[in-house]
């Protein structure tokens, strides 16, 4: 048993291992409380429920590594869902409606980047502006009433399955993979880490932090719009009140996955584990009938846990750094 454990430890880096262990514990606890928890159906359910969080978490992984943040995705997902449903209801062909909706996501991103780059507002506050504005637009667009969807091709997105797994899950998995590779292997991904560590130094080293930040916000806007379209299709309607606090679930997942609020640290593997962990937790709370008011408290506790572990990791990094330079300098 001990040997197996050692082998596992050698294969998987320590911080990821902790996440996997946490996931196993969460699954074990909820399974013991409700026997139906550990099943293929429920696993797929968790992935479907995680699909929107997962998409938004891709954007947050990039933004937080770059030293930014975004509090608008919940509102933007609702707004884009309502927008796409409204356009289709007005008779616009679905494909065209989708293109317009994705473009509107890009516009949201440009607006966020403009506030951060030009008016120099902290991203955390700037995107709060968008959170309010686009929630408002979502209600204004449909006059507060959900817009139902009857278009066949629109509904197909939320209903179809490949290999018995819904399309929405595939979209999330493929995008996480693609953006994970971009983050780890391309010059763009590497620039994101560089500006997250120190914007000024990165600029003097020949990078263009403002342009990178703009691209990241646009990326977040478009991905969120895609998420909004898929979500509305699953719900058979564009709902202006949907996806409240979506960004907090995504941020919790990303921070659980090892992305640090100080910027410059983290990766996509951590994010996918964090996403699954947080949705396993949220779904579990529902399945064991935790009253919905208490679910808020539990989710707050999870966010606190994520932030605390971020803090502990940071202190550990600093300590290790000090120790190793102590060693290097003493031996001199």
């Amino acid at each position, binding site marked *: 048993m001990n040997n197996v454990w050692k082998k596992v430890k050698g294969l998987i880096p320590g911080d990821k291992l902790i996440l996997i262990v946490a996931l196993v514990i969460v699954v074990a606890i909820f399974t013991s409380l409700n026997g139906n928890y550990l099943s293929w159906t429920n696993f797929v359910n968790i992935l479907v429920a995680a699909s929107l969080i997962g998409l938004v978490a891709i954007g947050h992984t990039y933004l937080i590594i770059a030293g930014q943040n975004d509090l608008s995705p919940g509102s933007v997902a609702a707004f884009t869902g309502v927008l796409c449903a409204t356009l289709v209801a007005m008779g616009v062909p679905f494909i065209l409606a989708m293109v317009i909706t994705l473009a509107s996501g890009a516009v949201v991103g440009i607006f966020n980047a403009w506030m951060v780059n030009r008016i120099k507002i902290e991203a955390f506050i700037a995107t709060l502006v968008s959170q309010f504005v686009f929630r408002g637009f979502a209600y204004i667009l449909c006059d507060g009433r959900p817009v139902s969807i009857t278009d066949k091709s629109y509904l197909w997105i939320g209903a179809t399955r490949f290999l018995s797994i819904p399309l929405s899950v595939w979209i999330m998995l493929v995008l996480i993979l693609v953006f994970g590779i971009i983050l780890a292997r391309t010059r763009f991904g590497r620039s994101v880490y560089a500006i997250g560590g*120190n914007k000024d130094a*990165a600029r003097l080293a020949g990078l263009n932090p403002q342009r990178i930040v703009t691209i990241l916000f646009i990326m977040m806007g478009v991905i969120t719009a895609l998420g909004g379209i898929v979500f509305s299709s699953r719900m058979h309607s564009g709902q202006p009140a949907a996806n409240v606090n979506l960004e907090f679930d995504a941020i919790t997942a990303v921070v659980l996955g090892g992305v640090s609020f100080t910027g410059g640290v983290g990766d996509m593997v951590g994010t996918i584990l964090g996403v699954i962990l947080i949705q396993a937790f949220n779904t579990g709370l529902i399945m064991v009938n935790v009253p919905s008011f208490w679910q808020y408290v539990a989710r707050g506790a999870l966010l606190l846990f994520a932030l605390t572990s971020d803090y502990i990791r940071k202190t550990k990094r600093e300590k290790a750094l000090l120790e190793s*330079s102590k060693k290097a300098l003493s031996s001199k």
Partner: protein
Amino acid sequence: MSHSVEFRNITKFFPGVKALDDVSFRAEGSRVLAFLGENGAGKSTLLKTLNGDYQATSGDYMLDGESVHFKSPHEAIEAGVSVIYQERQVLMELSVAENIFLGRMPTGRLGFIDIHEAGRMAQRIIDDFGLPIRPSTKVKDLSIAYQQMVEIMKAYSRDNLRVICFDEPTASLSDAEIDVLFRIIEKLRDEGKVVIYVSHRMSEIKRIADDVAIFKDGHYVKTVDAKTTSDAEMIRLMVGRDLGDIYDSLDRDKTIGDELLRVEGLYSDYVQPVSFTLHRGEVLGFSGLVGAGRTEVMRAIIGADRMLGGKVYLEGNEIHNKDPHAAMENGIVYVPEDRKTQGILSNLDVAKNITVSMLDRNSNALGFVDTSKEDEIVKGGIRDFSIKTPSPDKKIVELSGGNQQKCIVARWMATKPKVLILDEPTKGIDVGAKSEFYHMICSFAKQGLGVILISSELPEIIGLSDRIIVMGNLEVKGEVMRKDASEERLLSLAMSEGGEDK
């Protein structure tokens, strides 16, 4: 009663730096003790570990024979240990009296602050100090010197003041103001306090200090008598070796080629119009006092600050650097002065710090980075600049300051620049690494690069430059060839009133 402080085996580590190494000595009251040492010798760090701003990694303090340990500057102040910093710590919007008694204003019976009593108490201290200011004046309306006096009075107003330290207190004071400060320091000394005085200025130290504690690279060297020890002797103790030998051993066998860079009337928000030329194989020094505008000229040239007017020609062609990236593409690169905040990317390892500027050139059309190309550059950089690192994937902050700086130089040399701008490249670097940098600079020039060297250390700039441009007040004050350069000449130009037409 006379107080004393004893430092016992104080060691302090920061990532990549051993800032203090086993420092032990004793400071007596009724005497002024000066700390003397180069930048990065550990003087300020020692004060900060004394007053609890930093925690020593090991070692402790004896205050009046009693072991103490402060967790914060607040605790230290409560115990009678105050540090007066270069940057003032007073609250601008409050009055003199409110600043002096901050947090302990006298109160009446009902717990309300008794503003008149505070005024009277403050007036007594002001009279003691013999200053022409009033307790009710807002601190922001005072001159910088008097703001500093308020800070000293704040420390003095505590009955139990035992140790008072001054960290470069005269940096922004006029001569008359310095006289007032020194009178007060003498008063504190005569009352038996331990007075510690940190400064670079030898003449001040000679004037005010009784003893001089000398520091070098985080070590305490020894304490000498301020009045009987010669300047040369103190500098020898402080530098540890004669840099003159290093300058003499440099390889200057090179030819200065044709014009490489021509700057005409360049100005930005931060600097007046400046013109100069740089030739292939030339080391062009930029001398001047801190704040003379040298860094600002370079930032405008590379597009870090917006150039508002003027022209820049490289090899005869006019160029426009809209940002540092464009400058790099044109072959002009800049190693910034503040390594920590502008040079290194502290979250990344050595390899990624070296290759960050080559991301474009090392990646294919799809944007994927060719890691084998990068490995080559990293290996080459570590070898060519003898960067001491256990491995390329060590975090850059674990390296010593000199090796971090070499990484930044390696980063830029990999881009094959034509003009290399070095802004205070040897600041806070130990003497051994300094001499390596000097040899490096000469070999760059020999390879045909144009090197611009900004340095505030006069021997360094005279020892390395072929030609020196002196700046002051955000404009060029004059130009001196190497054979005519002397420290006096450069200083008098830097402080002169006139412009370029000398």
